[in-house]
């Protein structure tokens, strides 16, 4: 699998996700600077976490207009899988590839800790390594992770089974107490209609190696390799 990681000024998880991708694929991903106008021929595009453009104006708002994003959107619409993690999720909503928006956390605090996620579906290239309904532990690190969309959009996301992960308690219940940031309907990540674009606030690359204290993020990268060779 050939993966490409897009690097923006202020990205800070680009190298972390590159390590996870290399561990899974055995080959280094291409690191693509945001000023490029095309992404090289690739099986997977990753928009990494960080603080592109210092979160000026709104998280992801500036980077969504970087030259490379035109080609990312084109390739995503043509079916190339895209994984947006944290600030990458901001970028996916700001560029219109995913609906909704990520607002300031309800607590107004930056939250950096492990959370529990319930896997909503496992029939995508991203999630086949998990069981449906499985509870996994993945870290979050964000100030703006409060998923918001209007009721109609939320109903559509749920009706079309486009929610990927939800914040939950250890027994898999979707409680308010288990929701770290105020996200509507405990949404932590969503897919596009085709299931080929995934945006999520938690960082699977931060728990994808036993040396980091956990491996619940690893099945995502392994599943992508399995699906995309």
């Amino acid at each position: 699998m050939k993966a490409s990681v897009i690097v923006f000024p202020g990205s800070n998880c680009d190298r972390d996700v590159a390590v996870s991708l290399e561990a899974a694929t055995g080959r280094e991903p291409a690191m693509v600077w945001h000023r490029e106008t095309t992404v090289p021929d690739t099986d997977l595009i990753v928009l990494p976490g960080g603080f592109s453009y210092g979160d000026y104006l709104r998280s992801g708002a500036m980077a969504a207009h970087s030259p490379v994003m035109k080609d990312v959107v084109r390739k995503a619409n043509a079916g190339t899988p895209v994984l947006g993690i944290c600030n990458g999720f901001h970028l996916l909503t700001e560029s219109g590839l995913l609906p909704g928006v990520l607002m300031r956390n309800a607590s107004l605090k930056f939250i950096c800790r492990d959370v529990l996620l319930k896997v909503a579906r496992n029939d995508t290239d991203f999630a086949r390594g998990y069981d449906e309904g499985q509870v996994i532990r993945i870290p979050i690190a964000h100030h703006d992770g409060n998923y918001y969309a209007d009721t109609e959009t939320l109903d559509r996301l749920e009706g079309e089974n486009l929610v990927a992960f939800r914040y939950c308690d250890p027994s898999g219940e979707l409680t308010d107490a288990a929701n770290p940031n105020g996200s509507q309907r405990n949404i932590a990540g969503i897919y596009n209609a085709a299931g080929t674009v995934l945006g999520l606030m938690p960082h699977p690359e931060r728990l994808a190696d036993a040396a980091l204290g956990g491996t619940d993020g690893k099945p995502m990268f392994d599943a992508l390799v399995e699906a995309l060779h």
Partner: protein
Amino acid sequence: MKARIKITLKNGVLDPQGKAIAHALDALGFDGVGDVRQGKYIEVELDETDPAAAEDTVKRMCEQLLANTVIENYAYELEGS
């Protein structure tokens, strides 16, 4: 000319920052503070001198970048020429 642009959250969108400001005002002893909403104010200098053309430009700026119309409204005034 100069565009003065105000960006505000749409009605119904929760504004935790506005709430925090309301609590802080209350804690400072300001009575009678109702709902507080926080927004953004942006000034943009434009070379354009034709008001209609400037308005069209500012509208496109707001739609494409300055506001996220999923959650935000925008309003603007044009000044000078």
